Each structure stands twice: as C-alpha cells, then as structure tokens.
C-alpha cells in the first residue's frame, strides 16, 4: 500500500516539474509575442534641413511616429551648452515633443517663451527643462547627427554624444 502511495507522490512531483518548465517557457513566449515586431524596430531616419529656419522660429516634425520640436534660438534666448545643438553660428533646441510626465505634446507659447503641457499643467523653459508641475525631467533629446546644415534624426553623431555625456 505504502509503496503505491510513494509512486503516486512521485508521479505528482514529476508532473509538477514538467508543467513548471512548460509554464516558464510559455511565459517567455507570451512576453515576446507582445514585444514590438521587427518591422517596427527597423523604423527609419528623418533628415531636416535647418538652413531655412529663422531666428526664434519653432518647428514640429515627425520621427518614428513621435513629434519632435526644433527651435532656433534668437539673440534674446540665453545659450545653454548643455542642451543647445550648435550648427554653424546658430543654436537650436531639439527635443522629443512628448511631455516627460505622461506623454502629451506641450505647446510652445512664444509670448511667454515656455512650453506648456495642458494635461497636468507641466511647464518647460526654452531649453526644454522642466520648471513647474509633475514632469520629472527635461524633454528628451532624440539621437541625432549633424550633416552640414542638415540634422539627421535616428543616428548618433559626436554632437549628440557630447550632450548626453553632459546630461
């Protein structure tokens, strides 16, 4: 009798082990199923020509389905070597236009010289640095490379490395 009971215990344990291994593998598979697809990961590059921009002008472009702010600083805006992208003699602010709080697009208010996020009243200054409200950090800088007067988003150039190193 006891022998038989032991056999049953063993069968139970063996089944448990097989099921646990199978369960663990399928969890990995399920996780991977929800990861971005290869075609999504291979999203492309975006090139913008900065030369036609006027002083103080603000542009919004799209890169990898995300909006990007490009602001050409004018004489009144203080230079900030930690955030400015310098091309020739002009300074630009390049940032992913998604509030670092919950991802709304802040609005550029030229009169007040701030980016205002209406969602939860977050504010960023000209340099994209958070000055009020819940956003936890400045606007993110997308990877870029400078090619003459052109800005290539999605590739990392030395200028980008420098900004990131300082941040």
């Amino acid at each position: 009798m006891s022998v038989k009971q032991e056999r049953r215990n063993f069968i139970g344990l063996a089944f448990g082990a097989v099921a646990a291994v199978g369960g663990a593998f399928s969890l990995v598979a399920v996780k991977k199923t929800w990861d971005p697809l290869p075609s999504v990961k291979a999203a492309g590059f975006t090139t913008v020509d900065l030369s036609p921009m006027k002083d103080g002008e603000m542009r919004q472009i799209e890169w990898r389905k995300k909006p990007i702010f490009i602001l050409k600083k004018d004489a009144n805006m203080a230079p900030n070597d930690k955030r400015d992208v310098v091309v020739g003699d002009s300074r630009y602010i390049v940032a992913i236009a998604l509030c670092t709080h919950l991802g709304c697009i802040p609005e550029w208010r030229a009169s007040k010289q701030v980016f205002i996020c209406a969602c939860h009243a977050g504010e960023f200054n000209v340099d994209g640095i958070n000055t009020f409200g819940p956003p936890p950090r400045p606007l993110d800088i997308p990877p870029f490379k400078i090619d003459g007067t052109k800005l290539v988003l999605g590739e990392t150039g030395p200028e980008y490395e420098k900004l990131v190193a300082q941040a």
Partner: protein
Amino acid sequence: MAQIRKSTGIIDWLDQRMAVNKMMKVLVSEYWIPKNINFLWAMGVILTTLFVLLLITGFLLMMYYKPDINLAFDSVNYTIMKEVEYGWLWRHIHAVAASVIFLIIYIHTFTAIYYGSYKKGRELIWVSGMLLFILFSAEAFSGYMLPWGQMSYWAAMVITNLFGGIPVIGDAVVEWIRGDYAVSDSTLTRFFMLHVCLLPLVLIAVIALHFYTLRIPHVNNETGEEIDFDIEAEKYLKGDKANAKVIPFWPGFLAKDFMYIGFFMIFFFYLVCFHFNFAMDPINFEPGNPLKTPPHIYPEWYFLWQYEILRGFFFDIFGFSAYNIGLIAFAFAGIALFFMPIYDRSDVVAPAHERKGFFVWFWLLVIDMIILTIFGKLPADGVTMGISNSWIGFYSTITFFILLLVVLPIITTLEKKRGGK
C-alpha cells in the same frame, strides 16, 4: 448510474439527469432575500441587465468594426453610424450603457458603504465587487480607445505612459504594452482583443463569483438586522408567509426587481434616444492624430476623480518627485476602497444614519469625490473663485486619503469603544 425511470414529462426527464429541481431551489426558489430592503438593492439586477445589453450590442458592433488604425475611425463613424441599418442604435446603446453602468456601479458601491454591507461575513462580496470595478474600468478604457478618435488616441497615450512610472523597467514595459514606440496599430489590435475577448471572459467569471459570495452570508438589509435565515425560511415554507422576514428570490423578490428594471429602462432609452451625446466626446469625432494633442485632455466622467488625484500632486515633497507621488496616489486611489473592511474598525452593521460619526464621514467622502470629479474636468491651469485649480485638486486629494486612512479608523474605533451606535 442513478436509477433512471420512465419520465413523466420534460422536467422530470431533465431532473433525473441533471437534478434541475434541486438546482432551481438552491439558485432561486429557496434562495432567501430579506423583506426589508429598498430600491437601492435593485442596482445589482440593473447592472446585470446593463451588462447583458453591452454584450449583445457589442456582438452586433463587432461585426462591422475594423481593428486597424486606418479603418477603425471610419468603420465606426461611417459604416456603423451611417450605413448599417440601426447601427447608430447599437452604438448609442453601447456607449450610453458603458457610461450609465458606472453611475449604477457607484450607487451600488456607496449603498454598500452606507449600510455597512462590507462587514462581518460579507467581506468577500465587497472584495469581489471591487475587483469587478477594476475590471470594468479596464474594459471601459480598452473600449474607449477602439474608435481611434483624438481623445481615444490620447487617452491611450496617457494611460499606457502611466506604466513608465514603474521603477527601472518602466520604459520597457510601456513599449511592451504598446508593441511599438508610440501608440499604434499593434496597440489597437491588442486592446481590441482585451476588450472583446479576454476581459469579458474574466468579467463573467468574476460576476459569477460575486453572486456566489452572496449565497451564504445572504444580502444585508435596510436596518442591518441579523436575520437567522434558516428559521425565517422554515416559517415561510410552513406557510407563515406574513411573519417570515424573508421571501424567496424567485418569484417573490424578482417581481419587485422587474418593476425597477422597467422604470430604469424607460430612463435608459430616453437617454439613448434623446441624450446620447453625453457619452460621446466631441473631440473623438476627429480621427486620432499622434502629432497634435487636444488642448485639454480629460477622461470620461467616471474616471475624473481618480484622474484628479493623479494630477493633484504637482510639486515635489521631501525629495519625492511630484511625478512619482502622483502615480502612487493614483494607483492607490484605484484600489483604496478594497480595504474598507480594514479601515472600519467597528463591527456595527447598521445604516449610516444610525452611526453618527460614520454618517458625517460618509457624506464628506461623497462630497470630496464630487469635488474631485468636477475639478478633474476643469483645466489644471485655471482659477476658481480666486484659488488655483491645482491647489483645490491638491487639497481634495489629500482630503480623500485622510478621510479613508485616518478619519475612518479613528471614528470607528471610538464607536467600538462606546460599544455600538
């Protein structure tokens, strides 16, 4: 095998094979309901009715809806609304029911709080009910994004971004949930799956559990009286129906419920036919645009109080960033009511108007949640009566937590010391 004899009829034939008579007794004809309960107890049946309406209209809508970011908007706003015969009717029933079901859920929940129905033996009814509230929230949100309008898109953006607040792996989790760097087609299709398949399955299971948790402790009543259901049921079965404090669920009690369903349906279809717009955000009649945020984002009315708690903290406190405090407060607000049986230290089961301190507390909570709801809808950078909306939001958020976590345990402990009411 049981002894199967020649049956005397269909019922008998089924009874021999599935014990249907016994089952009917257990489920309805000898399931006892106290006599002294008022219309607030009919909300459960109304919720069931609304859920069934949502299921049926959902099936009809699903036959024309296309879960693809290029087609979704038109499949709803053109195909279903203009081409499909009576498509507008299903959509409006679905949308209005989704909104009204939350109104009834709130009434149902606050009835339980008012009468102390979450205490002593009824904790599981309460917990499974709160679980249903969370599931319905997920169901409502995943459905809200399907038409792919502007508000849908940005609601999806903001809500999926919430997971970015998880330490270390936050950003990766957001990407994983969306299946893309931004909210996109893969996000839409998986939310479609959640909305029409996984969540409804889980909902139905938990609704069954919620009903089952009610079977043994039985439903509470208007005075909180502890009824001995066995004794009262015996009286009833012996024919002393007038003196028994209980009636069977069927046919006695449901008859009354049907009347309330009748009243409710008149009100409901009045909304569907004449005021369906309250469940439709005008911004959602513009297709989703990832490159433009609507000037002012807010959720549907039933999430406003939680949303206001999320943005209630807008400055850092003791080195904790406003961002993290807001997220934690929001996450906690979502589950805060789960713990009612723990905050309430007293075991008096009585309606709030017989428990003085609790009565005041109850209405303060309701008022605070209404204030949160109102300010959740107003722009965060506005000013009301000379006070900035951000600060009103902050104070009412704090009040919410103090009421639940501090005031309620104190007054109920005092109540317990006094030994009752």
